[in-house]
């Protein structure tokens, strides 16, 4: 109800404003600034959220026309690289934390430190929010929303089996074994072994005591990493609590597997909440949990989608657009459509977030969650070394030892 009311009222305001602008063109005095915005939104809910924010922005800034352009994730780095080389960059680009180092190194980003320090809403954001977009004291973006890692689980299945929601990796494995029933086509855990799975693989290694980055130190603790890979791949190879399609399962497959009742637990972030709620009843059929703790650490990422100025032209208009994402109105509208957590404190304190028990695990995670590691070459190493090496372990083509050795070799190549 709440949602509908909001949406309708926003539509009304938007429509009214549009009519007003049409009747009295003098309102849009001065010249109109055109900016284009590159983003990697994929799902329907994300698009709905983006449209909502754009509508609100249009009402607030009739003199700025935003053209959004969707760049699919797999093509993103290729496109932005080409755009930088050919100097045909977009005005504003959505930058995820793991791409920051590469984009900065190739000179795609603009220093926004001054603009931020003179912004009146800067105090809404904890300093830590800027950690993974800061280099040498210079800040290159403003968080638009957060990726708060958490997990979804089938509440009904857990109740049926009489088991409690897991808080550690060991409990999670036991629960997965308990609810797996191949005859019903049920698997305990939807492991993302395909595109995008690399981040979770890295998280598991870190949870077992092998963080890839510690301060300036980059490297893996071979033994701990092997333990992690053995446990994670073992969910498929030993325990068989994972669908056999795991080595090729990406975002869509993992979400669909959970939506269609194939898997009982999945790891993701809050951004998929509305997508899952569209198929399963929240609080009844599925629930949310904070990420379980590994033997050495409890790793849940707090990452942010930053908006960054990537072109000098119309930089003031770009800044207006970037700032707008930090306004509570925009942030809540976006959360409403998607489930992505706002990055600003004032928005997180909104009762619709604070009073919703399903969002509680996310709020907990905000306390212990940690940022993504960040160094040049990380994204490439994760995607083209860690993921295939782990896949080889998943399909039994390599032992965890071999997979980790491959990762170590690749890491040396990437940073060497």
């Amino acid at each position, binding site marked *: 109800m709440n949602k509908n009311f909001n949406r309708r009222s926003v539509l009304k305001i938007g429509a009214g404003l549009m009519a007003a602008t049409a009747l009295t063109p003098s309102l849009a005095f001065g010249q109109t600034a055109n900016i284009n915005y590159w983003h990697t939104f994929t799902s329907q809910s994300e698009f709905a959220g983006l449209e909502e924010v754009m509508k609100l922005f249009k009402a607030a800034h009739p003199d700025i026309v935003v053209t959004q352009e969707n760049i699919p994730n*797999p093509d993103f*780095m*290729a496109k932005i*690289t080409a755009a930088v080389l050919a100097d045909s960059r977009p005005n504003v680009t959505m930058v995820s934390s793991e791409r920051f*180092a*590469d984009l900065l*190194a*190739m000179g795609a980003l603009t220093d926004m430190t001054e603009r931020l320090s003179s912004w009146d809403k800067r105090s809404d954001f904890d300093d830590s929010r800027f950690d993974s977009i800061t280099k040498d004291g210079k800040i290159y973006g403003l968080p638009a929303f957060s990726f708060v890692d958490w997990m979804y689980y089938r509440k009904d299945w857990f109740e049926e089996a009489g088991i409690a929601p897991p808080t550690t990796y060991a409990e999670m494995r036991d629960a997965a074994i308990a609810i797996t029933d191949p005859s019903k086509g049920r698997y305990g855990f939807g492991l993302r*072994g*395909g*595109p995008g799975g690399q981040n979770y693989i890295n998280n598991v290694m870190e949870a077992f005591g092998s963080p890839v980055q510690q301060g300036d130190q980059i490297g893996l603790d071979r033994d701990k990493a092997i333990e992690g890979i053995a446990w994670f791949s073992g969910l498929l190879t030993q325990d068989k609590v994972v*669908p*056999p*399609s*795991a*080595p*090729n*399962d990406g975002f869509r*497959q993992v979400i*669909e*597997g959970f939506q*269609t009742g*194939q898997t009982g637990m999945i790891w993701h972030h809050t951004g998929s909440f509305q997508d899952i709620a569209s198929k399963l009843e929240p609080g009844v059929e599925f629930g949310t949990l904070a990420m379980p703790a590994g033997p050495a650490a409890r790793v849940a990422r707090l990452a942010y989608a930053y908006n960054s100025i990537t072109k000098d032209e119309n930089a003031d208009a770009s800044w207006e657009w970037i700032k707008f994402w930090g306004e509570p109105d925009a942030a809540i509208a976006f959360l409403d459509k998607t489930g992505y957590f706002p990055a600003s404190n004032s928005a997180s304190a909104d009762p619709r977030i604070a009073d919703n028990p399903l969002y509680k695990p996310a709020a907990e995670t905000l306390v212990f969650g940690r940022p993504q590691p960040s160094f*040049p*070459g990380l*994204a*490439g*190493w994760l*995607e*083209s070394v860690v*993921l*295939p*090496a782990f*896949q*080889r372990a*998943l*399909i039994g*083509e*390599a032992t965890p030892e071999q997979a980790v050795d491959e990762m170590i070799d690749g890491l040396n190549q*990437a940073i060497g």
Partner: protein
Amino acid sequence: MTSNPQSIMASSRPLSTWDRINPARYIGELSETRFWMYLLLLPSALLIMGVVIYPTLYGFQLSFREMRLNRPDLGTDWVLLKHYQRMLSDQIFWISLRNTAVWVTAAVIIEFSVGLIAALALNRNLPGTKVLAVFILLPFFLPNVVAGHMWALMLDPRLGVINDLLVKVGLLGGYKAWFADPSTAMAAAIIVEAWHSFPFFTLLLLAGLKGVPSDLYKAADIDGAGSISQLRLITLPMLKTVIAAAVILRVIGLVNSPDLLLILTSGGPGRSTQVLSLYAFQTAYKDFNFGYAGALSVIMFIFLMMFAWVYVRLSKVNQD
């Protein structure tokens, strides 16, 4: 050049001042010389230099330099054969090379066979073949990206129609994750590729078949050649040039385009569908190592040139 009335007139009376400075006259005189030909070729030569030769050479020189976009600290110095040396000991390169060979060979063979069968069927001009032709050619009009996503869905282990069909027919015990199993991932990707591109062969072979006189088949009927012999001894030899051109074009296309595999498997699981084009793409756009990616592209370029040369030799296309 033979003399025309104007030139006779021009030479038979003294040149006026205007004649001497008239640019049209100079151009006219130039057009009679043998340099004219080269002058006319100049614009297109410049265009080819700019559009084809320069980027190719640029790619070549890239392969001899350090060029890592995310590592400005390494500079962009010449590194001679460093990238090529690395290739020799790069496991992934050799796996990709082997996979590329499998991928290209199998896909071309299937695409050619299916394309030929479709072309032969369409060439019979039976009622309804015109409509059928449109349907058969349809896959080719789909962009690779669309075809890839479509098949990824159809082969999906949860929602895929194909699994459903195979289980219902009884060929499969349960749903299979085609792209998650290294023993089926490459085969499934090849089938998707073949489905998408066989119309390329159909189209070219059909055009070739239209050029085979129907009298030849009548003569062969009377001579007692059955349909297999007719295909082997008349149709295929008559299509030799078309086949050679089509195969070379297709091989180039298959070697160079990573998009379908990028969508279906991203080279996985493990590295079981990693091919050179995908590896070069990832090296450039995920690792930002343009030097090594350049070296990989140069190797692909050399392999393709060698293939085209050997293939044309073997198929004796130039003989006729």
